């Protein structure tokens, strides 16, 4: 039996189509993926992301313990700032990719992927080094309001001056009378907020936001649009583009691996891999012939499989077929070409710069 967020009944009543994702019954779409995708790019959309997990590090050892488990450098993250990075195993494989919200050196919230809630908690708790590590996933609801009009909409419901909350910054405050952590983060490539609130208050917050955003064209959005939006930004999806068997260096996440920050789990393996050079790399590509790449399709050259597509779609904004794939390092440079096997055809593809989509301002 799949898990449900406190908003499940509201989704069903609103006509959402429900699918199981990472063990959760979640809305995949309301009116349609393309419609919702366009709403986020042009106006705003609201997503129930309460299936995401929250693991909190507290106590005098909190920062030190999390630094030891995180590939990015929380020493460079100010209080009230969020930072993206990976949790790695000793071999450098990615346990999860997470966003850490640093409230203070002795209070940090780790936002983890839905499918990894228990795995991450066990991993973090097992390497806590004296920090107090609590799995608060069930206590939190999480709503994402994303799009160029997101700030305008959320501002109607809060006295917090959102203009003073910069990108990847957060603050505490009430939204529609609900106590929230208001974070200027997201997974769409647009401006927007992720609101962490008490799980039981999330339906009230959801309804208030939908009402407030009606004049701006705010639309409820499902996982379908969330996936096409993130892929246009080449944001990686754990479980599709990376897992325990891939390293951040292979996944194109070297920018969140700070080998010189001090000791952390996986550092030695990652340093060795960096020195030796990676043999495969995750790249963004577009198809130059008709077709749509999908997760699991072979990347081929000279008729031989040489890699794998990990994500693909027809980009709703660009109208072209885009994807991410692991290819040999020699083929990772922009402009490199290979083919993707789609059923019985070999369809030409070219490595391009990512993100595929860049917002206008």
């Amino acid at each position, binding site marked *: 039996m799949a898990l449900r967020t406190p908003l499940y009944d509201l989704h069903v009543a609103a006509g959402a189509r429900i699918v199981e994702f990472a063990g959760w019954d979640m809305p995949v779409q309301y009116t*349609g993926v393309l419609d919702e995708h366009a709403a986020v790019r042009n106006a705003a959309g609201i997503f129930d992301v309460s299936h995401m997990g929250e693991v909190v590090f507290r106590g005098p050892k909190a920062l030190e313990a999390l630094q030891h488990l995180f590939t990015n450098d929380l020493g460079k993250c100010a209080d009230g700032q969020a930072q993206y990075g990976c949790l790695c195993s000793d071999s450098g494989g990615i346990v999860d990719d997470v966003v850490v919200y640093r409230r203070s050196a002795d209070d940090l919230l780790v936002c983890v992927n839905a499918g990894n809630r228990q795995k991450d908690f066990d991993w973090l708790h097992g390497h806590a080094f004296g920090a107090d590590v609590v799995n608060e996933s069930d206590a939190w609801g999480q709503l994402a309001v994303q799009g160029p009009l997101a700030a305008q909409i959320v501002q109607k419901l809060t006295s917090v001056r959102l203009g003073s909350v910069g990108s990847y910054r957060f603050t505490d405050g009430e939204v529609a009378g609900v106590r929230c952590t208001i974070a200027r983060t997201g997974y769409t490539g647009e401006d927007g907020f992720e609101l962490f609130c008490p799980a039981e208050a999330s339906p009230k917050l959801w309804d208030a936001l939908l009402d407030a955003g009606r004049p701006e064209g705010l639309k409820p959005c499902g996982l379908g649009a969330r996936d096409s939006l993130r892929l246009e930004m080449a944001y990686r999806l754990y479980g599709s583009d990376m897992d325990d068997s891939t390293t951040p260096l292979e996944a194109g996440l070297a920018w969140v691996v700070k080998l010189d920050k001090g000791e952390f789990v996986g550092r030695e393996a990652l340093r060795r891999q960096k020195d030796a050079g990676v043999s495969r790399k995750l790249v963004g590509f577009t198809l130059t012939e008709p077709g749509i790449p999908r997760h699991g399709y072979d990347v081929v050259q000279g008729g031989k499989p040489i890699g794998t597509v990990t994500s693909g779609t027809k980009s709703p904004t660009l109208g072209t077929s885009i994807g991410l794939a692991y290819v040999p390092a020699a083929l990772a440079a922009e402009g490199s070409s290979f083919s993707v096997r789609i059923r019985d055809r070999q369809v030409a593809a070219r490595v391009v710069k990512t993100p595929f989509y860049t917002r206008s301002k």
Partner: protein
Amino acid sequence: MNFPEDLKYTKEHEWCRIKGNRAVIGITDHAQDALGDIVYVELPDVGDPVKKGESFGVVESTKAVSELFAPVSGKVVEVNDPLSDAPETINEDPYEEGWMIQVELSDAKDMEDLLDAAGYQKFIEEEQE
């Protein structure tokens, strides 16, 4: 949901309209709704043979790939080429503008085990239970 009385249907959610010895083929309103936004379609060429119950093409939504199964056997005599540039037509008008191929029937008996509108509607109701 709309299921015109003059069409025949398959359990794979294709429809078939008979015009003399030709069958016009597409996917049903139920199928387009279940698929969601259709963004790509791959159809055979004129002259290609199709075989009842076997795949004759592919339709892809934003999220999924679905095979198309021929309701009848025969030879493709016409293809709705504009669909390749405007696959959303299948969502908008699955029974008219969204038709996919026309087939010259090789055996009129192929029609006999297809469902009528009431039978198809009953089938999808049972499938949803």
